[in-house]
Structure formats: C-alpha cells, structure tokens
C-alpha cells in the first residue's frame, strides 16, 4: 500500500507530466486561457489516462512482451512483438477515446456537454501516449501500480493546466512588454512553475 501511495505522489509532483517531461504542452498552452475550460480538459485527461494506462498495461503484458503470447500457445513463447507497441498503444488510445465519448454521451449528457469538445483532442495529447510509454519503460509490475500511475499522472497534468490558467487570468491586468504577451510569457511562467515544482524532487514516502 505504501508503495502505491509513493507512486501516486511521485507521479503527481516529482515526475509531473508538464514540468518534468513537457508532455501535453500543446493543449496545455492552447487551452489554458480560462480556468473553467482548463478544468474541463484536466478532468477529461484524468479520466482517459485512468482507463488507457491499465488497458495498455494488459496489452503490453499479454500481447507484446517477449513470450507474452505463451497463454495462447506454447509455440509462441519466443515471439517478441514489442516493436509494435507504438501502433498498439495509439490504436488503444484512439479507440478508447471514441468509446469513452460514446459512453459518456449516453449516460451523462451533462458531463458530455462540458467535456464533449475536449475528448477528441485528447487522442493526440502527448501526455496520454507518454503515460503509456513511461508505464512500459519503467516496467510497473502489477495492474494496481499501472492504474495508480495513470491516475496520478493525469492529476498532475490537470493541476498544472488549472494553475497556469489561473495565473494567465490574473496576467490580463499586468503590464507585460508587447512582444512577450501571450505565448512568450506563458513559456516563461511554465519555466518558473517548473522550478517551483523541482523542490519536490527527492521526496520519498
């Protein structure tokens, strides 16, 4: 249990998707103009990551790794399909996003209306694919670990986008040099926030 909490806290603060790995920067910069919309996108990302990382974990474990196809037939024991992992992960993510969109539309129209426009965007958000690739690279051992990592990374990303949106809302009233307005200052702010987040480095639970 402690181990899981450790992964959770680490994936939110220490290995934050935005500040430590710059993943999902495109939508992070494009959608962070108001807190309300960025909250919507943040929740959608948490949702999708919580689903895709464990599913990709299972795909990786039972289809792709060397010898993973053993359960099908002992003859496949030497097969190594791990070079297919990119195409597999992206297909899982794209189809999961479609599926989630349909399920949400059917069962919770109000949630669909608030998330609706963001869901298709998520299929090409690097943070989602990055989550799956990190899960594969760091070799998480159990399904629980992979799930906790997925949820944690999603929360970390949401935290980052909501906080930058809040700062950018305030920035409207400040006097910034003209060429720096908009994108330029957003970059520098993200850098400063990254420095702040670096203080979490080395935390161990």
């Amino acid at each position, binding site marked *: 249990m402690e181990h899981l909490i450790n992964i959770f806290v680490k994936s939110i603060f220490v290995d934050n998707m935005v500040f430590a790995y710059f993943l999902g920067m495109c939508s992070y*910069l494009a959608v962070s103009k108001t807190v309300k919309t960025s909250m919507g996108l943040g929740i959608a990302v948490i949702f999708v990551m919580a689903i895709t990382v464990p599913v990709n974990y299972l795909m990786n474990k039972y289809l792709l790794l060397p010898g993973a196809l053993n359960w099908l037939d002992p003859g496949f024991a030497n097969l190594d399909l791990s070079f297919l992992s*990119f195409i597999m992960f992206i*297909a899982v993510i794209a189809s999961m996003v479609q599926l989630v969109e349909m399920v949400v539309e059917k069962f919770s129209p109000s949630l669909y209306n608030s998330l609706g426009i963001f869901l298709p965007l998520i299929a090409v958000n690097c943070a989602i*694919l990055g989550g799956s690739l990190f899960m594969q690279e760091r070799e998480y051992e159990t399904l629980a670990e992979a799930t906790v990592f997925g949820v944690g990374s999603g929360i970390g990303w949401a935290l980052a986008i909501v906080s930058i949106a809040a700062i950018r809302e305030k920035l409207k009233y400040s006097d910034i040099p003209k*060429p*720096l307005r908009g994108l330029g200052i957003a*970059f520098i702010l993200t850098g400063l926030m990254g420095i702040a987040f670096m203080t979490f480095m080395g935390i161990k639970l």
Partner: protein
Amino acid sequence: MSEVKEREPWFSPKNIKLLTEPIDSKNPVTVLVLGICSALAVTVKLKPAIVMAISVTVVTAFSNLIISLIRNSIPNRIRIIVQLVVIAALVILVDQILKAYVYDVSKQLSVFVGLIITNCIIMGRLEAFALGNKPWPSFLDGIGNGLGYGLILVIVAFFRELLGSGTIFNYRVIPIDWYIKNGGFYENNGMMILPPMALITVGIIIWIQRSRNRKLIED
C-alpha cells in the same frame, strides 16, 4: 475555350515559399504553438536534438506525402485513425533505424521517439495542408515545417549545452583551466541542464522573434 495548362515547375516560387515560410514567420514551434512537447525534452545536448530534428522532418515529410496521395479515398469520419496508423508505421521505422545505427542517442531520447506520433506538428500539417493539397507541395511543406522545428531545437540545444556543460557536440569550448576547481573563475550553470530552463529559453526566443517581427504580436 481551351486552357493551356502549364505544368508547374518543381521549384516554383510558390513551392519555395512553402519551404521557407515555416522557418521564420510561420514557425511551427514559436508561432503556431505545435510540437512543443518534444521540442524541450531533447535539447540538453546538441546531438540528440539534431537526431530528433531529422527524425521529425522525415516523418512529417513522408506522412504528408502518403496522406496527400490517398487523401481522396479516406472517409472523413475515420481520418484521424488512418492518419495515426500512417504516422505510427513511419515512427516505428525511424525508431528501429535509430536503434540499429545510433543506439546511444536512441537510449537518450527514450520515449520521445515514440512521442513523435502525437507530435502536434505532424497531425496539424496533415489536417491543415496534406488533406487539401497535391503530393509534391505537401512533401515540401512537411520538410519546411520539420526544418522550422529543427531550427528552434538546435538553437535551444546550443545554448543549453554551451552554458550548461561548456561543450558543443561534446567538444570542449570553455577551456578546462577557467573552472573554479582548476583555479579559474568560471562555473557551469547547472540550471541550464534542468527542464525549466528549456522553457525559459524558448520564451526568450519568442520574445526576440516578436520584437523583430511586430506582426506576430498577440494582445
């Protein structure tokens, strides 16, 4: 009325413009805000930055070409999945080539080679250009955007490597005697190696570009 349709030369002014515009006034990273994710993570040293720039250029150019060739037969509803499959196939090729020939760089780039798939430059150019244009201009557009992206990558990596480790292409530029531990006055700026400085460097590049080119200023 019969119109004589003249064949456009391969390098007509319009095509040249496709190639050069993305390098400055339509730069994918600093103006269109595309492909930032990977632009920053791989710029600690120049070598991985250049390998990454070449990989992205190749994938952008060829995915633009392929999608443009089949653009009339892709059903609109499933075009994103078709695009992703084409891109993913190209990225797998690039990944295997990197693993075979420059294994150390491929290890340094780790997941970021895979993340070329979701690099917004590629999807963005496919949606905005390749779906509506002929193969040859699309190919040039892909190369142009890859170069524009690569240029930013190389500038950022140059400063980060020079100030952070005192080297360029692992070749020592700042003499070893200058360092404090050898009795000199100089110390590497350790901050430059850490992720946040990449963002600040790009912020400054944007600042300089926009003060040169006032048209790009947003309010």
